[in-house]
């Protein structure tokens, strides 16, 4: 994948948030709190848990369907960051070799269980976080954070990140294009040139930051980022929050999969 494609990819995540579905219309604060609740519930499971985690896929799948977010897009993004999770868990099968059960003659060690548990937790948490941004928009999440009492300094950093990531990427794109046009064969694409490009980008960014700060001062900036956004919690928001909370509670504290399994077994036998 080259740089241009990556750039338009980030823009796509941004554009998904302009849709107008039930999920998009939910109050950003509610969505943020519910997402955090979901994340903590998922992380709270023991490190060998797999079966009880599976029902939790219901939540991202529902969000994706109602919010009309393309599945492949989220999957690709999750795959993109998956090396982090894989490297965290990859040695578990070797280090934690105690056998837990035998599946069709194949001994499964506890390490494999914890490895898959990590992968499932990772997929659940990352896809939910992505869906939050895809259905709320990044500034929406920031304003929600601000209204929930996160210090203005942090929130303004995030807002700038969002605003200038596009500018910075365009700048990088221009430099990379200029380099590619004049680097014939593979000359000019080595690490030395790359390091210089990063250096130039850094200097340009610092200079731009100075100009931006000046523009802010010119308009009376005194340390706080004021906002006009006002959110109103509607009945639908509360219904959403309560039903997700109930869903999380049931699947966290009752072996729902097991009960369901026994029920199905009962029906068939």
């Amino acid at each position: 994948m080259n740089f241009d494609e990556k750039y338009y990819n980030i823009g796509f995540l941004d554009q998904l948030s302009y849709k107008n579905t039930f999920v998009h219309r939910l109050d950003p604060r509610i969505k943020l709190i519910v997402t955090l609740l979901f994340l903590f519930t998922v992380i709270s499971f023991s490190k060998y848990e797999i079966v009880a985690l599976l029902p939790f896929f219901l939540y991202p799948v529902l969000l994706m369907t109602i919010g009309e977010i393309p599945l492949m897009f989220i999957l690709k993004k999750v795959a993109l960051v998956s090396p982090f999770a894989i490297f965290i868990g990859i040695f578990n099968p070797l280090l934690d070799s105690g056998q837990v059960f035998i599946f069709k003659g194949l001994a499964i060690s506890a390490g494999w269980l914890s490895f898959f548990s990590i992968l499932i937790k990772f997929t659940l948490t990352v896809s939910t976080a992505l869906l939050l941004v895809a259905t709320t928009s990044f500034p929406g999440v920031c304003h929600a954070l601000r209204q929930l009492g996160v210090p203005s300094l942090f929130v303004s950093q995030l807002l700038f990140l969002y605003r200038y990531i596009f500018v910075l990427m365009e700048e990088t794109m221009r430099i990379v294009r200029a380099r590619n046009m004049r680097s014939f064969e593979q000359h000019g694409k080595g690490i030395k040139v790359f390091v210089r490009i990063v250096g130039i980008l850094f200097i340009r960014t610092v200079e731009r930051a100075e100009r931006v700060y000046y523009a802010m001062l010119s308009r009376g900036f005194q340390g706080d980022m004021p906002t006009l956004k006002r959110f109103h919690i509607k009945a639908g928001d509360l219904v959403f929050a309560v039903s997700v909370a109930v869903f999380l509670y049931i699947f966290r504290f009752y072996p729902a999969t097991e009960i369901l399994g026994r029920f199905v077994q009962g029906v068939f036998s």
Partner: protein
Amino acid sequence: MSHHIVEFKNVSFRYPDGTEALRDISFRITHGESVGIIGANGAGKSTLLLQVNGYLMPTSGTVNIGDLYLTRQTRQEIRRKVGIVFQNPDDQLFMPTVYEDVAFGPLNLGMDETTVRERADFALNLVNSLELRDKPPHHLSCGQKSAVAIASVMAVEPDILAMDEPAANLDPRSRRLLINLLKTFEHSKIIASHDLDLIMDVCHRCIVIKEGTVVADGPVSEILTNKKLLEENHLELPLSLQRH
């Protein structure tokens, strides 16, 4: 209101690295005057604009805006009076949406919500960009960005407008719209630009800067027809005068 003046008295400025950007500059711009600042690349035009609202403080000499002398104490007050539009609108538009950006200044002045909304709507209307209000700046074209950048400054209702290359990167039609817009503003205006036709259309007076000093100061009709002076400063006659 005859106090919207900008007065530079013997202003010199030296950058921390030792570059002498301005040397003993003096001029006085009276209320409602439109002044073009022209000169070669690196002559000190941008540095001069940065002194007008106190981002850079003169190394020596005084800057007087309205009835206020520029000091570290009066900077905030002066920034309210002087709106600066930067050359690169990406530096100017830092909020996630156009509307929030235009509202940024009024909100910082501590206005209540209704006033802020009135001002933001008014400013966006002024540059015919009300329909862009919910767009993020990175989805705008260059011309739209410039228009919104002007709106974000006008929302503060400054007495004096300072602009650095306002028409850079604009297509001819956007440039023409900008010129017509600038003509309708009754503010005192200081415009630094290489676009001499724009200066001729918008300004009445012209100051030529060379290596940080004023080398000419007079009516546009005199300065922009002086071929020798212009060429000494790496400039040419405005295109509209070259055809005759």
